[in-house]
């Protein structure tokens, strides 16, 4: 009941702010007109404390107690101004969202520039529902902030609204603004699937002999684990020794060619097919193997490398959305 009410109010306020502020386009400078400020929980408690002090001072007609109370009240008011100043004049020079997999965490990169001669402290920015990223800005400094967001569904994910806030200098007030940036992340399918990677017509005999599973001793480099990596390629021995989850990369598998085909995956749902294709693309990229992708109405020829991989993944992400 309470949560529902809060959600409704939040939605209303967000819509109101969106109408009021209009769309944002970096680079932009935050101005007072779009900054909002309210006391925090500790701020309200502090107000109560000041009220009790005021009553005590008035009741005992004690000038010194009143002077103390007024001094504190004025001090907190200066703090309120300072809190607003933390955001006022801050520049956002860049905003971009990286591609990511559904069900995982995407990353928005924001770059802020502080042109003023004063530092800005206790800043935090977040996507709705996600963890906040905290940062501080020295005078004249520029900072790049990565903030996570929850990638829910394959396709294009608009990040309608970011919240940028500061509680400096006391945590008694919280000044914030909403950023309505043209942020759009392309969300790849979740890399899932158990079917083996189909071999292309030109498959190498050397690979055949290894019976699918590369021996752990033969890897040439390690990189950090990413969702979708095959468990078979994880360097379990290193992990057991306390190292983070790493994935072994193998030389020698490069040069193999794979034709990945939507049509070849009979018996699976649409999303499951796309997930399987996505997992295959990942695997090919991991082994530095060439692959092609055949989707209904779209054929991507054989290719290799990061750009090719991105093209393939985007095609999977946007499959069925009309705009490929």
């Amino acid at each position, binding site marked *: 009941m309470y949560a529902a009410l*809060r*959600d409704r109010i939040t939605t209303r306020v967000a819509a109101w702010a969106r109408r009021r502020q209009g769309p944002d386009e970096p*680079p932009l400078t935050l101005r007072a007109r779009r900054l909002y400020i309210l006391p925090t929980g*500790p701020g309200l*408690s*502090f107000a109560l*404390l000041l009220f009790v*002090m005021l009553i*005590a*001072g*008035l009741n*005992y*007609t*004690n*000038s*010194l*107690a*009143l*002077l*103390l*109370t*007024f*001094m*504190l*009240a*004025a*001090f907190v*008011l*200066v*703090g309120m*101004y*300072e809190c607003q*100043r933390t955001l006022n*004049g801050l520049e956002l*020079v860049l905003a971009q969202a990286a591609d990511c997999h559904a069900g995982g965490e995407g990353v928005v990169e924001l*770059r802020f520039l502080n042109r*003023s*001669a*004063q530092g800005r*402290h*206790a800043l*935090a920015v977040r996507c*709705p*529902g996600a963890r*906040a990223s*905290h940062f*501080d800005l020295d*005078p*004249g400094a*520029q900072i*790049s902030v990565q903030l996570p967001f*929850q990638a*829910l*569904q394959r396709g294009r994910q608009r990040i309608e609204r970011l919240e940028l806030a500061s*509680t*400096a*200098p*006391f*945590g*008694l007030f919280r000044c914030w603004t909403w950023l309505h940036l043209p942020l759009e992340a392309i969300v790849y399918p979740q890399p899932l699937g158990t079917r083996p990677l189909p071999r292309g017509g030109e498959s190498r005999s050397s690979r055949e002999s290894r019976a699918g599973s590369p021996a752990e001793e033969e890897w040439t480099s390690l990189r950090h684990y990413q969702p979708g990596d095959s468990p078979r390629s994880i360097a379990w021995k290193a992990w057991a020794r306390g190292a983070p989850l790493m994935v072994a990369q193998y030389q020698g598998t490069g040069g193999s060619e794979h034709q990945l085909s939507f049509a070849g995956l009979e018996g699976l749902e649409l999303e499951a097919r796309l997930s399987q294709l996505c997992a295959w693309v990942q695997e090919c990229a991991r082994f530095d193997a060439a692959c092609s992708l055949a989707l209904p109405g779209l054929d991507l020829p054989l290719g290799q490398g990061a750009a090719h991989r991105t093209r393939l993944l985007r095609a999977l992400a946007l499959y069925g959305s009309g705009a490929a």
Partner: protein
Amino acid sequence: MNVPATKEPPLVAPRPGRGAAALSITALLVTAALNWQHLAWWCLPLLVLASALHYRAMVRGQALPGTPARLGLALILTAGVLASFRTLNGLAAGATLLAAMTAAKLFEARAIRDWYVIVGATLFLLLAACLDRQQLWRLPLYAFSLWLSVAALRGLGGGAPQPAPTLLRESARQLLYALPLAIVLFLFFPRLPGAFWSLSGDDSAITGLADQMSPGSIARLTESDEPALRARFEGALPPVQERYWRGPVLHDFDGFSWRRHRGEPAAPDAVKYRGTVYRYSLTLEPNSHRTVVALELADPAGAPLAQFTDDFQLISRRPLTQPQGFELESYPHAQRGGELSPEARRIDLDLPEDRNPRSRELALRLRAGATDDAAFVARVLNYLRDGGFVYTLTPQRLGRDSVDDLLFRTREGFCGHYASAFVDLMRAGQVPSRVVTGYLGGVWNPIGGYLLVRQADAHAWAEVWLTGRGWVRADPTAMVAPDRLSRELLQFGGGAAGSGFQLGAASHWITTLLQSWDALNAWWQDDVVGFNFARQLNLADWLGFGDRDWQTLAVALGSGMAAWLLWIAWSLRRITRPGRPDALARAWRRIDRRLRRAGHPRSPQEGVLDYCERLAATHPAAAAALAPLARRYALLRYGPPAAEADAEAELRGFRRAARRLRLPRAAR
């Protein structure tokens, strides 16, 4: 797509930095120390111990005690407060409880919320100190405590932990910004004419005149330079021999000690006010006996909150725990009392039967030779003058029959001894009489323009009832030591047994210094500590707008606050204004200048790359020359951040390239 709002994690940092924690603890200790006069003795050591343990746990990363231990501790501490004060009520007990609980809080201070509680408690302790004591010399200490507390508060705001010096510097600046508004609020925030409620039993342990007097038990009277009252006279000062400031009147004598008797309200015609009148404003320091000590004999009209008793004391209805101001008129030559009721006569003739037999004998002997009461009074005074008595502040102790001991054995004492003996003799001779305590004298402070009466001026004299003349003052000490009366002192410190400087003309500047300090204190007490609703209205009047009422204050308050808000917005805006543009922007500005000269101005809001595109459409040659630089600029500004050393080198390279830029002139 829009993501539904879920419960979002807080934006506040979970823990304060070391600097903030250290500041909080320091502020707490300093503020508790400022309360030392009314905290229980174990409170400060407890706080120091708790701080030390907290610090150790913080440094070593040890765990703080768990919930059962903390609950037990809270119970023990509450019991401790009860054991020390027998109550949890009142300022002293409350402050002790608060300090003790804050010490317990230190054991569990982990989250930022705990630290807010600690800083809040510190501010409350500071409030308790302000409520308790308001002397001027404490002001810097209070300010220091406030400074530490708000600096600690600043450390709780989140963000990267800041070191204590930064926090202190920033909060000092902020306090300076806050001061004008605090003054505006102080002057114009409407005060209350009276209290909603009052704490009981708080008027103890304040030095000054006492409710009782036992001269025989005092072996050494220490003179205190503490002020007792200050009086600003309109017109002439009263002459030295009329500077009797009337305090508690003592009636009940047990042979050794004098005590007050609960006085009835005075009858309306009890005093005939006549003769010279002195108008003055009196600022009375706190005292424990609730008597408004005024020049004899005050018209009670000036103290509406006091009761005028039938022995002419002004008893305040409220405890005098704060310095208070009164506008009074006094008539030294007023006739005191018309009729003496049989009850009053009985009280003021009462003597213990079995005490001081030799004095009683002496009184009867002197009485026998006197024609009337006045003659008897004169004979007793003469006896004291000629009997070889000595005035001293370090008398011998007296026995149970204190008057006999004084008159026939020790023959030395101070005002209390002689007043006691005199009244005893009077009563033995059937003349109603009583002891009046108060102050005698007062020093003119030319800097402050007031008469200062110190605790060292405390005095005791007698009043006798003479039929037809009413109550008449008789000062036996003046017989023994005439110079006690005429001690017109320009110097501070009586130079007697207590502290004090014996000041000659050579140390005139010390006198001036001390007088200035006292005048400053007087100003503080009168105009700052004593600032109240009445003075607010006077101030509004003086400012000259509107009537003397709340609306005027509201207007003054509103305009003062508005002015402050504008000022603060302006000052902070000045700080927010962009500093010098960075090196990259400066380098591009040079390019911009050259573009303008070449006839291709870039509009200020246009992005560098956008500009290049626009230029390419009209002046492909210029655009081609500029494009590499623009790309480099965009990379430096918006590209992935490089390591510092690389960034420097990149920037140098960019500047070099910018200098080498050759632009073809625009076609005219």
